[in-house]
């Protein structure tokens, strides 16, 4: 089926090819999302570890290095 003409259109036709643009878009977007997700999860893990570890206090003083 031919695509419907658009009022005022200055040209018509089908764009051929362009897979290079498609792969670049998906490659860059997925890479950014994966790296950012990994960073967010690493920082979250550190925050949870810090929350669960006992904080230094009078009853629980910080360990001093003996070396």
């Amino acid at each position, binding site marked *: 089926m031919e695509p419907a003409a658009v009022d005022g259109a200055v040209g018509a036709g*089908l*764009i051929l090819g*362009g897979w290079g643009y*498609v792969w670049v*878009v998906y490659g860059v*977007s997925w890479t950014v999302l994966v790296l950012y997700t990994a960073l*967010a999860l690493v*920082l979250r893990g550190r925050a*949870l570890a810090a929350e669960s570890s006992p904080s230094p206090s009078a009853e629980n003083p910080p360990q001093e290095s003996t070396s």
Partner: protein
Amino acid sequence: MKWELPLIGLGAILLTIAHVWGLFIAPPEAMMGDVGRILYIHVPTAWAALVILTVSFIAAIGALWTSSYGWDAAVEAFAEVGVILTALLLFQGSMWAKPTWGVFWTWDPRLTTSAVLVVLFLGVLVLRRIVDNPEKRLTVSAVATIIAYVDVPIVYFAIKWWRTLHQPFSSPDTVDSAMVSPLRVAAFGMLFLAIGIAMARWRSIRARLHTEADAPELPDLPAPLDLGGT
């Protein structure tokens, strides 16, 4: 209950399914051909960015209302994810524009207002790094977020208010059914992923703010030595 891991996992699965569907199963678009497949990631990124920035705006109101560090952390977390998504959106759009419009960039109202959006929310994040006082930072960044958010409805309605190269609003009625399903799955996938990442960031930013609030205040610096003379 920590929802971020299930949300990130579900989002990644849905996004993978939608993108395999959009890249290899869905038909090429009638005029854009295979380049139209970029829209299966570009459109969901745009929708997720606007939703995430809206949450940042709501968090800013919550922060001003309650002065709570939980809301303050949400402002930063959602603004940060919103900036990443909007920057990706601009990149994806420019890569789509080259084969379809013939240029990577043009000062079209939708494109220009979207670029302004990145700069505004980047400004909010920079402001949070500049202001050291936690109470002042909460107030200043919340107000800046509310001001920056004014651009979100302008971005959304830009294609209606001005003459623009960008496509008009689309809906399931204006998109072929073979393309609606992968688009819809990708939209939910991107949204779940973005919310999951923002919640993970919120948890670490909130911990940082609590640590900062618990830290003892530094003593005042000694007065400069008077070396005499006069």
